[in-house]
């Protein structure tokens, strides 16, 4: 038997317009804890979805050798039959069902008549819970347990399927330090029992602590696999591997000439909407001036979107505290309508869910946030509306035969231009752009950067939220770093390097400093 449990050879996965994975190779040794790290969009999750059969055989190129045999998984069930279990970042538990019901969901313990044997199921669940170090009643509804325990129950569920290769996608992203410690300890125990783990994480300290080897991905390619025991395997080396690409696409030139401060946020603190006591944004303060682009750099789960949405008419979170100043004067923004009135616009990172009405045409989408400007006494001037839509179509170069085409017929880049048009039409002074170039091709990205530059030249203040560091370095004047809900640094772009920013973005919260 070979010492490798898994070998993924030359995996290439293409989505329409994007090569998500290109010739990726991954070798995992039997019984090791193998970490995968990389920036958002580097292809980590895609690779794991290929491995677990979420993307079935035939939708990718390359081959997967598992336990010495080449495997062709048609679905996630096929991979589970072989003992490969994936635990996604968003836990797949049903909150109203009990612990035991969740563990055996889709895999129920049945007696000879085909009915579920609850006594046996609860008993087995109890054994599994003990194996993951949980002392919970198997009949407790999952929703009553914290995220940390839910994570462990996911592992118990994996154990019930006789897991041999466990894949964890950012398992500690939502956990506090205690729960993380516990989880990592459990992974070590499982390793001792011969279970191999693949763990996606961007917490570098954590990886240094637990992983035997780490594979670094960048832009859908394997950069290198390093042995964590080697003295050369430092955090620096990993950071360089993660961000080390050259600025392959250029950013349009811009002359920076910031004016007066337009927006200042002080001591902004936001709690999780459903988990009481969990701080999502912790005492964040920042400002942005007219004619300036300010970047907010943060990894997944740092609270970037939560910060923006809570500022934008309290669209996220509860117990929001802190103060917003507009042109030096304190303002109170209770809802989205008043945010728009105060000249703030927010372009969501998820344009399909939060930005567009996909079934309606371009014209209607563009006018939707500023419709009142087109209306007198509640009556919309349809001709004027058409004129406005045509204007933005020309200005922003939205490529479409007509503004009466439904937006779901447009490409990602053109959809994004529609969203930008919609917000520009509200004549904002401050634009918050959340991942403005996510999921769009390089050419369209350049156009979006050009639009940003034009807005800045008009004296608007722009906040760009992004996890792509080159993008921030290419477009911003100043960059704030956000890590685990806190602003951990403020760097003028002239002094910023990707390595320095990545360091600031991975500063973990000091243990228990907010416990009181």
């Amino acid at each position, binding site marked *: 038997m070979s010492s490798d449990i898994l070998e993924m050879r030359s995996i290439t996965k293409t989505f329409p317009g994007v090569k998500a994975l290109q010739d990726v190779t991954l070798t995992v040794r039997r019984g090791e804890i193998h970490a995968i790290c990389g920036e958002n969009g580097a292809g980590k999750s895609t690779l794991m979805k290929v491995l677990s059969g979420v993307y079935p055989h035939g939708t990718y190129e390359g081959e997967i050798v598992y336990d010495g045999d080449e495997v062709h998984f048609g679905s996630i069930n096929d991979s589970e039959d072989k003992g490969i279990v994936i635990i996604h970042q968003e836990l797949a538990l049903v909150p109203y069902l009990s612990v035991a019901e969740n563990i055996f969901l889709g895999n129920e313990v049945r007696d000879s008549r085909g009915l579920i044997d609850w006594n046996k199921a609860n008993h087995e669940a109890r054994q599994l819970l003990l194996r993951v170090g949980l002392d919970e009643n198997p009949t407790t509804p999952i929703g009553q347990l914290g995220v940390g325990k839910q994570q462990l129950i996911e592992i118990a569920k994996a154990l019930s399927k006789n897991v041999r290769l466990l894949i964890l996608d950012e398992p500690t992203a939502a956990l506090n330090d205690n729960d993380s410690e516990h989880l990592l300890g459990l992974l070590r125990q499982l390793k001792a029992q011969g279970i191999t783990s693949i763990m996606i994480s961007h917490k570098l300290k954590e990886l240094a602590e637990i992983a035997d080897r780490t594979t670094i991905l960048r832009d859908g390619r394997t950069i290198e696999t390093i042995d964590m025991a080697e003295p050369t395997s430092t955090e620096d080396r990993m950071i360089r591997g993660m961000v080390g690409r050259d600025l392959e696409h250029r950013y349009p030139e811009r002359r920076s000439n910031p004016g007066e401060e337009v927006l200042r946020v002080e001591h902004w603190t936001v709690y999780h909407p459903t988990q009481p006591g969990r701080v999502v944004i912790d005492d964040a303060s920042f400002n942005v001036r007219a004619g300036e682009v300010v970047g907010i750099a943060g990894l997944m789960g740092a609270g970037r979107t939560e910060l923006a949405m809570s500022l934008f008419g309290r669209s996220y979170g509860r117990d929001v505290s802190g103060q917003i100043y507009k042109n030096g004067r304190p303002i109170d923004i209770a809802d*989205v309508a008043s945010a728009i009135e105060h000249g703030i616009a927010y372009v969501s990172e998820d344009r399909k869910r939060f930005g567009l*009405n996909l079934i309606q045409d371009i014209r209607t989408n563009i006018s*939707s946030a500023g419709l009142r400007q087109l209306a007198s006494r509640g009556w919309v001037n349809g001709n004027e509306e058409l004129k406005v839509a045509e204007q933005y179509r020309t200005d922003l170069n939205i490529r479409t035969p007509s503004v009466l085409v439904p937006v779901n017929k447009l490409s990602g880049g053109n959809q994004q231009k529609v969203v930008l048009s919609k917000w520009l039409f509200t004549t904002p002074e401050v634009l918050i752009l959340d991942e403005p170039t996510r999921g769009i091709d390089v050419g369209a990205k350049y156009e979006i950067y050009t639009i940003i530059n034009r807005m800045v030249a008009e004296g608007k203040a722009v906040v760009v939220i992004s996890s792509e560091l080159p993008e921030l370095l290419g477009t911003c004047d100043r960059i704030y770093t956000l890590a685990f809900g806190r602003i951990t640094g403020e760097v003028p772009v002239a002094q910023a390097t990707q390595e320095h920013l990545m360091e600031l973005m991975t500063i973990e919260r000091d243990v228990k400093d907010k416990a009181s």
Partner: protein
Amino acid sequence: MTAVAGVREMITRNVRQSGIFIAFVAIVVLFSVLKKEFLSPGNLTNIVLQYSYILILAIGMLMVIVLGQIDLSVGSVVALTGAVAAVVVIKGHAPWYVGVLVALAVGFAVGAWQGFWVAFVGIPGFIVTLAGMLLFRGLTYRVLENISLSPFGGTYYGIANGFLNGLLGGYGFDVFTLLIFAIAVVGYAVSQWRTRRGRISYQQTVESMPIFVTKIVVVAVVVMAFAYQLSRNRGLPIVLILLAVLILAYTLVMSKTVFGRHIYAIGGNLNAAQLSGVKVRKVSFWTYVNMGVLAGVAGVVYSSRMNGAQPGAGNMFELDAIAACFIGGASTTGGVGRITGAMIGGLVMAVMSNGMQLMGVPQSIQQVVKGLVLLLAVAFDVYNKRRAEAAR
């Protein structure tokens, strides 16, 4: 670069709307061949009188459905508003207009009640209006003390049974009726022409001239033939005027007002609407209030037509109104639907019921046929959507 669209493109572009329109025409042709009294003056008048209240309900229902909600209580609200009007007019000897106003006020209150629970408490409209269906039915029995009240008589009776005719004399047909319809047809032609000019000046696609003219002529001929048949019977039904005004007004509300646009925005993507500053609660609330008031209008029309109020009135009306919307192209998930579509959907149901009644088809078979039509119409919608998605 004014683009001119051919017939084919026009049909594929509006396949849903034109699909149901063609079905409607086919049904009408079918019944008129099978039963020649189908297109007789008396029967056409009858169809208008018999289904006007369903169409009025369908207007409000369409708005609720576009919002992404539903209203199951309208049948009970029709009964309740009619009952209150009957108590005020018949028992209280109040003038007819007091009865009408009280009925509308009750409709408003019912709408506000349901709107409050849906919009501000966040309970799904299905549940709130299911409760309302029982609640308002029960209240109807209380208000009427379990018995029917009749007759209204007088002006109130005239709302649904009266005609405008003889104003300009008759020669075997009513000139006034023809004149009103002629004015409507001219108005239609002029507004179509202006829309066309507007679109051309904004460089949008329009139909080629022959198609445009043919369309107008066909509509004019059909409408005037219908008018001629009405004029040979009793003239212009008052409810038809009411209905026309409501359809016109609400078509404008849905297409040309901020309120209407916000309904489409919420139904199309609630999150995006919220993040665009749409006051989702307010809009939802007023949509239900509007539905309540329209149910009050339908209650007045129905009680007037029945010349009294019965505790069991309006039973199952909600289903006819909902079916009209879905047959007329409204989406079950909200965000899509037009008043004109719902009206044609309602007419399909009306014509089918009427035609089958004329042919003496048993009630049981009628139900089966109506059920199948509803199912097929929505299946067609789902099929179309899936095809559109695959083409993307």
